[in-house]
């Protein structure tokens, strides 16, 4: 068989292994080196909630999918070209994601009797059992080769075996013609301070993996994926949680207010708190509080004191914060709440992605409690979304709830870093010239926002709280006053629409079908729409970043179409919301509630069906 080097425009690789096998690190290294190389990129970590689930079992399989391309990449890919399975359980769990034309790389040493039994294989041929015996299968004794590679390193056996993921990475680098420079540099930086003795062994084992793959006959073809031709500028790879944290810091800088974050660790939102805790050099104060409620309440206190205040959480934590969110609504203080959604209800599936907190974000409080709700649509977009959340909160004196998703928070993509000069200013609504006559709930005529007077400002002493008040800030149970204040708070949120961009339609503004989405489904819907267009069919697509209020041209956009197909990872929460707000349209739904992202195929099928109807 003659070895061929094939130019590929898209390659999807899934690294899968035991949760202790280091697959998340292997996957992110492969992704980062591809990003530096200039490829389009999207990643999807798919891991169990347990830190070390029972070894060798299907429930303990940790996967990391990377999609690289010679062009901009929208999604982590539905199916993979290469499945790396470090043990039988990983093969069993993830074989379903393998393309018909895909390739499998397995660690032979883990396919012993006990490993096969734990994974639940009943015959001695796992490939036949899974019906993938016709694919290209590379069987390599990765554990043994790693031990041989490091036999003279002086490391103990456990440390040596931990390096087998690096051997695998070396093999993948050969198959996809990745230059090793980046990974060498990464290893040097990672270990130089605390474990310099680990630098050479790691570099050696990767190099040996690379050379092994080159030497054996089992790898029929290798691939190159040319760099994309992206915009000029400085690029980096960024996860959604990191981008959200950075967007908040950007808003802090633009508004001139110190950033305060009160939070409690919760999957998959914790990385935002971790990231903010690191950058004290940007003046960030973080508190890891005793619970979710203290997270939001310390933030509300910090907001009262004049900081840009933030709390970050995921679904169950948002439930705990409900009453305090109402306090922020009632006191009309600026506050940013980021909910990195996960599968629910209750604890649900903590590490799995979903869009099921929309109703909770919109309605999950007692009383008439209007909330500004916005969403992020890709990992890098979390930067802009967090920045915008802060801008709206500070300029409209309201809490803002930003819905991110586990898939976005943990996923990553290359991002051309912006210049802060290109971002709008943020002007907090501080009261001026009203010493001695400040009325806390008198509103701006245009936006209905009140003014902000913070402790330390002489002549602005006033009281806020959860009880209903008059414009003067005096407690009141007067019936007319209550109705007035309820309607004014509602109107204030509605008027945020004046400061958000109009809804854009990708494709013709009129037609039979408009595909609609919100949040992290953007990439999958876009890919589906591109596929439909590639077949020569016309289709329009509109994606909502702003949910409450909706963009002011929403009715106009929806009116251009006979049918509207709303795609979301829940049972139809946004569709229901659109039906309530814009009832005069025909809505169809495309839903998935499996703790997984859409496959592009799911949406293409839904569009086909909608077009036939």
């Amino acid at each position, binding site marked *: 068989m003659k070895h061929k080097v094939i130019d590929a425009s898209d390659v999807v690789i899934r690294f899968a292994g035991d949760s202790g096998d280091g697959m998340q690190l292997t996957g992110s290294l492969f992704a980062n080196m591809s990003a530096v190389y200039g490829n389009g990129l999207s990643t999807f970590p798919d891991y169990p909630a347990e830190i070390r689930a029972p070894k060798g079992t299907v429930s303990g399989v940790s996967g990391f999918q990377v999609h690289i391309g010679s062009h901009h990449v929208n999604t982590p890919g539905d199916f993979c070209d290469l499945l790396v399975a470090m043990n039988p359980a990983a093969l069993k769990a993830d074989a379903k994601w393998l393309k018909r034309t895909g390739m499998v790389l397995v660690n032979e040493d883990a396919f012993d009797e006990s490993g096969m039994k734990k994974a639940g294989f009943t015959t001695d041929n796992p490939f036949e059992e899974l019906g993938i015996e016709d694919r290209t299968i590379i069987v390599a004794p990765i554990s043994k080769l790693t031990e041989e590679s490091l036999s003279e390193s002086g490391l103990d056996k456990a440390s040596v075996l931990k390096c087998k993921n690096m051997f695998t990475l070396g093999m993948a680098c050969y198959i996809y013609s990745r230059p090793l420079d980046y990974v060498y540099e990464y290893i040097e930086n990672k270990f130089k301070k605390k474990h310099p003795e680990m630098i050479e062994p790691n570099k050696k084992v990767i190099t040996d993996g690379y050379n092994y793959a080159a030497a054996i006959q089992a790898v029929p073809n290798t691939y190159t994926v040319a760099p994309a031709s992206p915009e000029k500028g400085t690029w980096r790879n960024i996860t959604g949680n990191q981008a959200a944290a950075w967007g908040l810091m950007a808003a802090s800088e633009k508004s001139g207010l110190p950033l305060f974050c009160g939070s409690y660790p919760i999957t998959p939102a914790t990385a935002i708190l971790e990231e903010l805790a690191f950058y004290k050099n940007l003046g960030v104060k973080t508190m890891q509080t005793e619970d979710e409620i203290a997270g939001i309440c310390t933030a509300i206190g910090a907001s009262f004191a004049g900081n840009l205040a933030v709390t970050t959480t995921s679904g169950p934590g948002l439930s705990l914060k409900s009453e305090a969110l109402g*306090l922020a609504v009632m006191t009309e203080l600026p506050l940013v709440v980021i909910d990195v959604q996960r599968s629910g209800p209750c604890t649900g599936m903590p590490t799995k992605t979903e869009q099921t907190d929309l109703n909770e974000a919109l309605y999950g409080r007692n009383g008439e409690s209007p909330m500004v709700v916005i969403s992020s649509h890709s990992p890098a977009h979390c930067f802009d979304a967090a920045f915008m959340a802060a801008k709206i909160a500070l300029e409209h004196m309201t809490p803002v709830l930003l819905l991110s998703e586990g898939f976005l928070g943990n996923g990553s993509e290359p991002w051309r870093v912006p210049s802060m000069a290109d971002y709008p200013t943020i002007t907090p609504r501080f009261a001026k010239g009203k010493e001695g006559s400040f009325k806390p709930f008198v509103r701006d005529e245009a936006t209905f926002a009140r003014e902000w007077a*913070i402790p330390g400002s002489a002549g602005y002493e006033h009281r806020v709280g959860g009880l209903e008040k008059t414009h003067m800030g005096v*407690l009141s149970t007067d019936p007319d006053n209550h109705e007035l204040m309820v309607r004014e708070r509602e109107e204030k949120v509605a008027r945020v629409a004046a400061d958000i961009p109009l809804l854009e339609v990708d494709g013709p503004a009129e037609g039979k079908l408009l595909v609609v989405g919100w949040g992290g489904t953007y990439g999958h819907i876009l890919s589906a729409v591109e596929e439909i267009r590639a077949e020569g069919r016309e289709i329009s697509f509109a994606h909502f970043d702003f949910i409450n209020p909706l963009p002011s041209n929403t009715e106009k956009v929806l009116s251009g179409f006979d049918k509207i197909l709303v795609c979301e990872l829940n049972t139809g929460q946004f569709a229901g919301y659109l039906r309530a707000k814009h009832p005069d349209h025909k809505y169809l739904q495309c839903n998935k509630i499996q703790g997984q992202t859409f496959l592009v195929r799911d949406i293409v099928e839904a569009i086909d069906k909608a077009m036939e109807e």
Partner: protein
Amino acid sequence: MAAKYTIKDFKSDQEVRWCPGCGDYSVLAALQRVLPKVCEEKGIDKEKVVVVSGIGCSSRLPYYMNTFGFHSIHGRATAISTGIKVANPELCVWQASGDGDALAIGGNHFIHAIRRNVDINIMLFNNRIYGMTKGQYSPTSKLGAVTKTSPYGTVENPFNPGSLVLASKGTFFARSLDAEVALSEEIMLEASRHKGTSVMEFLTNCVIFNNGTHAEISDREWRADRTIVLRDGEKMIFGKNRDKGLVLDGWRLKVVTIGENGITEDDILTHDSHSDNLGLQMQLADMKYPDYPVALGVIRDVADATYDERVAAQVEEVSAKAKFHSVDALLRSGSTWEVK
């Protein structure tokens, strides 16, 4: 220079709406009397004073103060106060919470603020009852207390707030009676001087739902015999005739009478709130009538770094060493690549 303030400067124009005879009035009066002194001592203007509360009768207090005020939600006052103080350590934060607010629904925030030693002053109004909801038992109601939700008497033990504070290694705990306005003012001033979480327990009377709950110690007729006011450097002597005192009998405190069994004033313990003698202070805080007099005054006042200071110091320390201080630099830090 700070302006000179009087009580009037701290009274708001709102009508005070507690029941006639409520113990909360006298704590409010003490706070309004002490704040001019606090501002003068600290050299701060009154707009730096923030009064925070949760929910309950006593939590209405911020409305009666002409300061920045935050009447928050049930149990969360301590978390709100913490956020305010950490965000701006220059502010002087006072908090009003009832026994339900601080010790039931807000118990978690209460112990964690104490653990962190956030520099806030918590006024804990303990009337051993839920007054605002009209008479249900609280976490400080005595075992067997008959209330609307315990018609046959409670079957749960109460918290002693002092024990809870000291068990959390609190750095400041003091106690006063509603009727002892001068003493209340005195412990408020000490609380203000203390750096860290200062918990002041005020034994207050609820005339409507728990009238006389503290009467067995607070009634004028026997108050001197059943309470002891602790002051630093002074002997632990009490009683109408100043003839009773506290000594250590082995590890335990014991009430003795001066002049009996050869006891002289020299044998009586001398109070020292500043010594880190948690065991003795715990016993003092835990003293109950009829075995002991109930301790009033500052029981513990020890120095430790505060959370808000440490947070601010870490920000400064990291900033001083950091290579960059702008978001533009952050965006270009670490692993990036150029497309030309």
